[in-house]
């Protein structure tokens, strides 16, 4: 047979397996978007009554929803900010220790140990925070207020129980530490060995090698890890609900018994007993928390997208 060869693009045969498989993946991908949209939609629908709630529906003498939610939103951001301030430098240090300083044989086991911290449930952290950490820190806080009380952050009177926003921030920091560490470690380990060996061969010390090869390579990874940590710190509920002695107001002092509580902790403490419009108000504060975390994550994503990470697949 010498018929002319058909010109044009050669199409791969369409196999049913391919069709089914690719459709399944697209559907599950789309499902995720649908879930996120429905989270927003259902929360919004259920919170509508809260926005028009009458003053008598609020506990604590608030006149409208926004005056109710503002101190809570402040507490949420403030505690998460403090936690990240503690956790991020520490996490980068730990990740570097595990990936580049610890003996190679030990590093696997050390990574496992830090991962264990990630797996500890938040309610256990809550028990630990109130049973161990708060009493441990209280004398230290008293000294801090006595010596450094002139700094507005450390102004007194000192809390007698140690259940302050700083304790909460430390507990939160411990909780987000392993997440940030695990991600940073993975990223640091992915640094091309050639870069590291090249800089060492040029006479760089270990720190210079890290500063020149590892950290620039892992920068977007560090940001994304911190973002995940921030997400967990913002929404962390039980540890805050159990450790903090709450008072819904905007204060920056770290060591007094008057602490701004967080949205999540407020919901957890009040939801089981809430009824009627009270439920809608709590759902609405949940919506505010959702919007805050959404905004934080989106900003973080935009930062990361500006510096696209390299990956094996492209």
């Amino acid at each position, binding site marked *: 047979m010498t018929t002319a060869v058909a010109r044009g693009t050669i199409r791969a045969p369409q196999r049913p397996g391919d069709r089914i498989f690719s459709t399944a993946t697209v559907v*599950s991908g*789309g499902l*995720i978007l649908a879930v996120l949209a429905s989270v927003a939609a259902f929360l919004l629908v259920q919170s509508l009554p809260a926005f028009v709630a009458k003053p008598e529906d609020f506990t604590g003498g608030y006149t409208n929803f926004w005056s109710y939610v503002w101190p809570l939103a402040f507490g949420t951001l403030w505690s998460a900010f403090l936690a990240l301030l503690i956790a991020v430098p520490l996490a980068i*240090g730990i990740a570097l*220790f595990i990936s580049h300083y610890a003996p190679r044989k030990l590093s696997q086991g050390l990574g496992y140990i830090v991962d264990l911290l990630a797996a500890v449930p938040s309610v256990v952290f809550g028990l630990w925070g109130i049973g161990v950490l708060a009493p441990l820190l209280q004398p230290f806080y008293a000294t801090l207020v006595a010596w450094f009380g002139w700094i507005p952050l450390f102004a007194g009177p000192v809390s007698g129980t140690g259940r302050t926003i700083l304790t909460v921030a430390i507990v939160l920091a411990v909780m987000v530490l392993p997440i940030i560490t695990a991600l940073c470690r993975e990223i640091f380990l992915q640094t091309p060995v050639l870069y590291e060996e090249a800089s060492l061969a040029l006479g760089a010390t270990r*720190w210079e090698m890290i500063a020149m090869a590892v950290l620039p390579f892992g920068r977007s990874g560090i940001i994304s890890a911190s973002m995940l940590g921030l997400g967990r710190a913002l929404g962390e509920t039980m540890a805050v609900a159990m450790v903090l002695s709450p008072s819904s107001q905007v204060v920056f002092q770290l060591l007094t018994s008057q602490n701004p509580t967080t949205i999540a902790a407020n919901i957890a403490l009040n939801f089981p007993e809430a009824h009627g419009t009270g439920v809608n108000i709590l759902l609405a504060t*949940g919506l505010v928390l959702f919007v805050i975390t*959404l905004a934080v994550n989106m900003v973080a994503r935009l930062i990361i997208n500006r510096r696209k990470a390299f990956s094996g697949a492209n």
Partner: protein
Amino acid sequence: MSTTTMAAPMTNSLTAGKLPKHSGLAVLLGSWLVTAAVFFVVQLSGASESFNIAGTLFFGTVLYCVAIYLLSYFVEGVRKAKDRLVTALVTAAFVVALLPLISLVATTVINGLPAFLTPTFFTASQRNVVGAGGGALHAVMGTLLITGVATLISVPIGLLTAIYLTEYGRGRLSRAITFFVDVMTGIPSIVAGLFAFALFSLLFNDPGIRFGFGGAIALSVLMIPVVVRSSEEMLKLVPNELREAAYALGVPKWLTILKVVLPTSLAGIVTGIMISIARVIGETAPLLIISGFTASMNYDLFNERMMTLPVFVYTQYANQGADTQAYLDRAWAGALTLVLIVMLLNALARIIAKLFSPKLGR
């Protein structure tokens, strides 16, 4: 030869300008001794009642950082000094992170063991129990049921999405999914609980709805993005050469994914799934909201309140009855159970990763 006039003794040019091998350790011990001496004097002077061990170690380490930097700066130069300082700081960071873990595990074990070892803890519920006694069987059952269902929902969706993102995804849909999966990882757990509550209370028109399956849905919302992210990372690590080799042999794309890409990254994916289970199994807030709490057994996911271990811990702590110690003991025992489950999952994940991971360079 005029070298005979050299006055200085011969130095080993290879070790010149370097600190001796164990000088770091020596300086560290020295700094601890110095601070210990200072604190001892403080104690003698009566300013504090007892010898401050924590303070000694802390300030001793700070002193070490300063001392090793200065020593190295004058002997080895600024670059080496910086290197030594960073080494000290990085190691200190790791030790600092270990302290809460050790303290946490120790307190949980010590406080949890008394109630954990009572024979009824895993054979009885809290029904009709006032004061000491009873157990957490209802909570363990609830946790296993709810987490199991959540895993059954999350793993297929998460894994398929990850495959879509790495293998098929092009253009706007894939970018949108990547973006929103990242956004979803930041969803606070309590919002997931509120979502499940809002959804089902509208669906069933019941303003006080509490049931187990809602908890599973809430946990899935939290779990899916974690599974997607970890699986996606693992799939991305599969070298493109493997895929290209399979295509070159004429293997269809879906078979390439099933037989080449997935097996190569399987260990990582399973590890990720285990870790995501470990993450959601300890979630308290969403279950507190949608599954509620009860003192009785409940095997039915679709009816009535269902107790779970984290909520058990919380309620035992929050609603302490007259016999406070019994409730606290049970709370710690529940915490110990949770920690054990989670550690078991992690260990399992490690073993799987170790046994089945392909042997690649590092």
